[in-house]
């Protein structure tokens, strides 16, 4: 039996958990470090120390436009490494275009799994004094890109 969980429902359920967990992670992993002098230092901390504590590896590629947008690319995102997107499996009877519909659903489901890491990053950065929005791009799994937009 397949349960239908809407995206907004998932987001609101996770929001509180992300608040607490992101806060705790940022407190613990910034403990022995000197304070950050600017935004780039904080983002580098996320790329190196924070990522290696959470995902046992560092970010593979960091890009910035020097105007407050950073793209963090992880070539093998651990939490989604074993997730498969197989459009042919989930077709059901009466739908016009089964493969497209199923692909949409599984992409959507994978997207929901990214709320948690995006939320933790956002919360950790806001704890360090940087208000931002974090989104993720999973156009080619298992590589995953996180886009951080700092609110000026």
């Amino acid at each position, binding site marked *: 039996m397949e349960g239908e969980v809407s995206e907004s429902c998932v987001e609101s359920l996770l929001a509180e958990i992300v608040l607490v967990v992101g806060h705790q992670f*940022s407190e613990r992993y910034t403990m022995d470090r000197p304070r950050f002098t600017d935004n780039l230092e904080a983002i580098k901390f996320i790329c190196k120390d924070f990522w290696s504590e959470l995902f046992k590896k560092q970010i593979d590629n960091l890009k910035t436009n020097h105007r407050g947008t950073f793209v963090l690319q992880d070539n093998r995102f651990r939490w989604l490494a074993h997730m498969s997107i197989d459009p042919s499996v989930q077709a059901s009877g009466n739908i016009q275009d089964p493969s497209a519909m199923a692909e949409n659903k599984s992409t959507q489901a994978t997207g929901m799994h990214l709320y948690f890491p995006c939320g933790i990053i956002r919360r950790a950065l806001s704890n*360090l004094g940087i208000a931002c929005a974090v989104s993720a791009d999973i156009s080619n799994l298992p590589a995953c890109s996180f886009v951080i937009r700092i609110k000026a």
Partner: protein
Amino acid sequence: MIVCVAVVGHQNNPLYIQSFTKADDSLKLHHIVHCSLDVVDERVNNPKKSGLIINETFLGLLNPTENYKVYGYLTNTKVKFILVTTDLEVRDADARVFFGRFHTAYVNAVSNPFHIPGKKITSRKFAERVSTIVKSFGLSSSS
């Protein structure tokens, strides 16, 4: 002798205040802690004037008022620790060690799943740990 320790959050909201004197002057100590928050903000915003290394967590002696000495410490997450002591011969190194232990105890208290970020720390274990750290501070500086 340490008379008061305080943890103050990002928006200058008190997260934990504990005084260690038998006398009933906790209000005066709260007032001292409150005043020292201004000094912390000033130190952080004008590092060149105060001669502070910009990314140091330990802020040093904030302001010696009357017969108290006040030390400050600022974490990466903008949480401030304030230490008020009546000891006139406290060394910087002792205060640093104190804040290091205090930071560890604070992180452990915040990692409690029942703790709500931004609210006061109500953990009894944290209070006990803090009293232990305060007692050992007195011993190490006198030896």
